[in-house]
C-alpha cells in the first residue's frame, strides 16, 4: 500500500473495497420496517412491564420481561449508531431525530456521542490517538512507568468486575451527563438539551406512573443494555489478536480487518445487536446500514477473517494492557510475570 500520509491523496483501494460502496445506500422502507418491528414491540413490552408493577404483580414477573425488552433497546441503539453515520435513513434530519430520541431513552446525548464516535472511527487501533470514544487502554511500558496511584486506578478501571459491572452504569448515568472536555464547545449545548429531555422523560414518568415504578422497569433494562454495549465495544477492539499500531505504521485496511473483530454471534443475538458484530466491515465502510451488512459481507470474501465467537470472546476478559513488543493484548498478571523474568 502506498504511503498515503506522505502522498497527500488517498491510496489506491482494492476493487472489492470500492465495490462495497454500493451497500452504503440507506433505504427508507427497510429502515421503517425495522423500526416498526423493534421500537413498537419494545414500547409494548415497556407498557406491559409497567402494568405488572402498577397492578401488584410479583416483581419477578416484571423481570421476566427485562431480557426481551433490553434486546429491543439494544437493537434500537444500533439504529442510533447507524444514524450517527448518516446511514439509517437517507434524510439527515430523520437520522438526527431518531438518534436524539433513542439517545434520550438510553441516556445518551446523541450529538456528542456522534462526535466522539466519528472520532473513534478516525483514530481506532492507533496507539498515538487514544482517548476519545474508546475504552481506555495503555501499553505495558506505560503501565510500568506510571506512578502507583495511576497504576492502581487503571487496574481498578480495567478489572472485569468493574468494567462490566458498575463501570457502564457510571459512564451512561453519570459521566455522559457532562460534556466531554475535549469535545468542541459547539457540541456542548446538545448535551444539555439531551439532559433536559431526559429530565422531562423522568418528570413525566413521575407525574404519571410514579418514579418508583419507572425505575423498577427501566433500571434493570438500562444496566443490562449499557453493560452489553460496553462488552460489545470491548470485544470489537480489544479482543485477543487485535492490531494496534503507532501513527507512522498505522494502516487503515489492517486496522479495519485486524483492529476490529468479526464477532460472530448466534443468529438471535446477531439480530438483537443489529449485525454490529460485523465490525471489521463497519470500520471499512462505516456508511453501510445494519440492514445491509450481512449482504455486503457475504459478497466480499476478502474480508472473511477468522471470527471471534461467543466462547473465544471470553478470552478478552483479561486483555488489560497492550504489549507493543509482542504486538498483543496481555493481562496484568502476564505483564508482571514477564517483568519478573
Amino acid at each position: 500500500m502506498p504511503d498515503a500520509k506522505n502522498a497527500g491523496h488517498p491510496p489506491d483501494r482494492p476493487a472489492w473495497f470500492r465495490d462495497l460502496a454500493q451497500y452504503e445506500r440507506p433505504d427508507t422502507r427497510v429502515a421503517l420496517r425495522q423500526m416498526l418491528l423493534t421500537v413498537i414491540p419494545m414500547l409494548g413490552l415497556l407498557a406491559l412491564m409497567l402494568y405488572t408493577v402498577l397492578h401488584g404483580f410479583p416483581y419477578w414477573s416484571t423481570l421476566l420481561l427485562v431480557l426481551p425488552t433490553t434486546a429491543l433497546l439494544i437493537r434500537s441503539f444500533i439504529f442510533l449508531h447507524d444514524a450517527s453515520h448518516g446511514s439509517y435513513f437517507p434524510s439527515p434530519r430523520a437520522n438526527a431525530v431518531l438518534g436524539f430520541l433513542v439517545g434520550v431513552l438510553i441516556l445518551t446525548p446523541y450529538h456528542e456521542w456522534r462526535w466522539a464516535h466519528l472520532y473513534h472511527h478516525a483514530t481506532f487501533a492507533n496507539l498515538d490517538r487514544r482517548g476519545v470514544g474508546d475504552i481506555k487502554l495503555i501499553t505495558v511500558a506505560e503501565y510500568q512507568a506510571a506512578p502507583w496511584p495511576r497504576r492502581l486506578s487503571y487496574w481498578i478501571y480495567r478489572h472485569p468486575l468493574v468494567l462490566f459491572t458498575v463501570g457502564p452504569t457510571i459512564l451512561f448515568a453519570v459521566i455522559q451527563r457532562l460534556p466531554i472536555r475535549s469535545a468542541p464547545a459547539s457540541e456542548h449545548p446538545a448535551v444539555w438539551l439531551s439532559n433536559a429531555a431526559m429530565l422531562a422523560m423522568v418528570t413525566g414518568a413521575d407525574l404519571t406512573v410514579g418514579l418508583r415504578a419507572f425505575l423498577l422497569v427501566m433500571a434493570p433494562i438500562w444496566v443490562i443494555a449499557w453493560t452489553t454495549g460496553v462488552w460489545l465495544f470491548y470485544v470489537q477492539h480489544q479482543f485477543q489478536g487485535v492490531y494496534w499500531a503507532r501513527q507512522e505504521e498505522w494502516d487503515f485496511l489492517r486496522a479495519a480487518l485486524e483492529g476490529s473483530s468479526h464477532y460472530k454471534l448466534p443468529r438471535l443475538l446477531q439480530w438483537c445487536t443489529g449485525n454490529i458484530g460485523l465490525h471489521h466491515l463497519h470500520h471499512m465502510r462505516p456508511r453501510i446500514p445494519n440492514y445491509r451488512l450481512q449482504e455486503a459481507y457475504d459478497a466480499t470474501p476478502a474480508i472473511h477473517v477468522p471470527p471471534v465467537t461467543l466462547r473465544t470472546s471470553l478470552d478478552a476478559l483479561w486483555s488489560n494492557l497492550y504489549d507493543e513488543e509482542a504486538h498483543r493484548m496481555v493481562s496484568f498478571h502476564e505483564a508482571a510475570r514477564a517483568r519478573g523474568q
Partner: protein
Amino acid sequence: MDENTEYYWCELCGHVYRRTTWEANGNRCPNCGADLQYAHPWEEIRALNPRYPATPVVGREYTMYGGA
C-alpha cells in the same frame, strides 16, 4: 485515484474541504480528523449524485446519496 482533485468528501462525517485544507491538517479531515482513507474525490461522489453541484460548498455536509 485522482490525485489532482480539488475537493475531498469525507466518508466519515460527510463534510467537503479543499484537498489543500486536508493537507494543511496533516492529511486528515479538517472536521472529524479522519485519515485520507476516508477521503473521496468530489468527482466520485458527484458520479453517484448527479444533482450535486460540480463545485461543492466548502465545509458543508453532503450525504452519500443525497443527490442521486
